[in-house]
C-alpha cells in the first residue's frame, strides 16, 4: 500500500492518509480481505502520531471501505471492487474531457453539478 502525505498541505493529515488508501483501492492495489498495515508501523514509517493513522482508518471504516476488528486490524471490505470501478471510470472521463478541450475546473464543475442534481 502506497501512502503519501504532505505536512505542508492545508488538508488534515488523517484525511490525506485516508485519501491515499482510497487511491490504492481505486488503482486496484487492494483486494477484499487484504489487511491494511498495522497503524503503529505506518505511524513509525511516516513519522506521524499513531492516533492520526487510527483516525484515518476510522474514517475509512465509516465509509465502509474497511472493517476494524479487534486483533485482526483493518480489513478491506467487498466495497473495494466499486472503488476500482471508479478508478477505471475516472481516466476515461478525464481523457474524454481532454479530447473536448475542457480544463480541470470545467470538468469538476460538471461533476459538482451532477452531485447537486
Amino acid at each position, binding site marked *: 500500500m502506497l501512502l503519501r502525505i504532505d505536512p505542508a498541505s492545508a488538508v488534515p493529515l488523517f484525511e490525506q492518509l485516508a485519501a491515499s488508501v482510497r487511491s490504492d483501492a481505486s488503482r486496484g492495489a487492494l483486494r477484499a480481505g487484504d489487511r491494511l*498495515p498495522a497503524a503503529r*508501523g505506518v505511524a513509525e*514509517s511516516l513519522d506521524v502520531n499513531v492516533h492520526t493513522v487510527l483516525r484515518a482508518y476510522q474514517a475509512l471504516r465509516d465509509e465502509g471501505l474497511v472493517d476494524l476488528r479487534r486483533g485482526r486490524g483493518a480489513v478491506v471490505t467487498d466495497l473495494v471492487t466499486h472503488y476500482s470501478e471508479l478508478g477505471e471510470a475516472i481516466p476515461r472521463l478525464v481523457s474524454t474531457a481532454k479530447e473536448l478541450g475542457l480544463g480541470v475546473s470545467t470538468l469538476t464543475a460538471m461533476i459538482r453539478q451532477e452531485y447537486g442534481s
Partner: protein
Amino acid sequence: MTSATHGIRVQLVTLVIPLLIALVALVVTFAVASTAPGTVIVHWGAGGRANGYGSPFTYPILIAVICLPLDAIFGAIAILSSHRTPLTVMTKIIGLVGLFITVLLAVGLGGSLVSQTGNASLDPASIVWLPIGFGVAAVLTVGAWFLLPKASKVSRDKGTPVAPVALTIDERASWIHSATAPASLMWGVVGFLVLITAIVFFTVSQRNGALWPVSFIPTLILLVVLSNFAWTIRVDARGVRMRSSIGIPTITVPLSTIESASVIDVQAIAQYGGFGMRWGLNHRFGVILRSGEALEIQRRGGRSVVVTVDDATSAAALINGLVDRASTVARL
C-alpha cells in the same frame, strides 16, 4: 535433442529410478527381516560399537518413511520446475537429492541388514555398509548429473526500469506490503514438518527416549519456517526494511546505500533453488516466497537484494523517487 526426450530423462533420473531403487530395497529388506532373528543392531556408537538393538523391520520402515516421500517430493519439484523454465544447476541438484539419499540408504541399510543376518552372531562391522552406501550414492549421483540434460546458464536480466514517483521536499511517503508464501508452499512445509516429526519420534522411541533432545528438531524447523516465509516489506525515507513475522531476521537497506530499484521476474526453483532467504545463481540475495513479480533493489557497489512481493512496481517507483529526492537535496 528435443525437449520431449529432455523431459523423459528428467522424469526417469529424478523420480522413476529413485522410486524403483527404493521399492527394490524395501522388498529386499522386508524379505530379509522376515527371516532374520528377533533383534538386530539398529544403532552404532563411537568407534563402530553396537549400542542399540531393535526389530529387523526397523530397516524397511526407515527406507519407506524416508526414501519414498523424499523421492516423490524432490522428483516432483524438479520435474514441475523443468516444465516451466530451462533446467539450471539448482534444478539438477534438487532433482538428485532423492536419488542420493535413496541409494545411500538402500545400500547402507540393506547391506547392513543382510550382512548381519548372514552369520550367526550379529556383526557390528556391518556398519561399514553405510560409508559404502555413501560412496556408491556419490558415484551414481555424479553419473546421473551427466545423464540429465545440460544446465542452462541463468542470465542476469536487467529488470524493468520503473519511473520514479515525483516527491516534493516536504512530502512523506511510505509503501508497506506483506510478502507471504502461497498456501500451496505452506502445505508443503506442513507436510515436511509432519514427516520430520514422524522420523524423529520413531528414532526417539527406538532408543527408549534416550535421544529426546532430538525432539527439538521439529520446533527448530518450525522457527526457521516462521522466520522465513512471512515478511512485511516497508519502503520509506529511511530506505527498505524487510521484517520477518517473528522479527528475526530483519533486513534493512538504508536509502543512502541504494542506487535504484526495478521490477524483475523470479523463477524460485531454477534461480534460487527453493524458497526463503536465498543466495541466487545470479549473485543476488533474495527473500524468495514464490515465482513471478519481484522487487530488485540495486545497491551501490553492484550488489542487489530481491524480494518477491505484489505491487513491486509501486515500491520500485517510490524507492527511485526517494533516491532522486535525496540526491537533489544533497546537491542543493
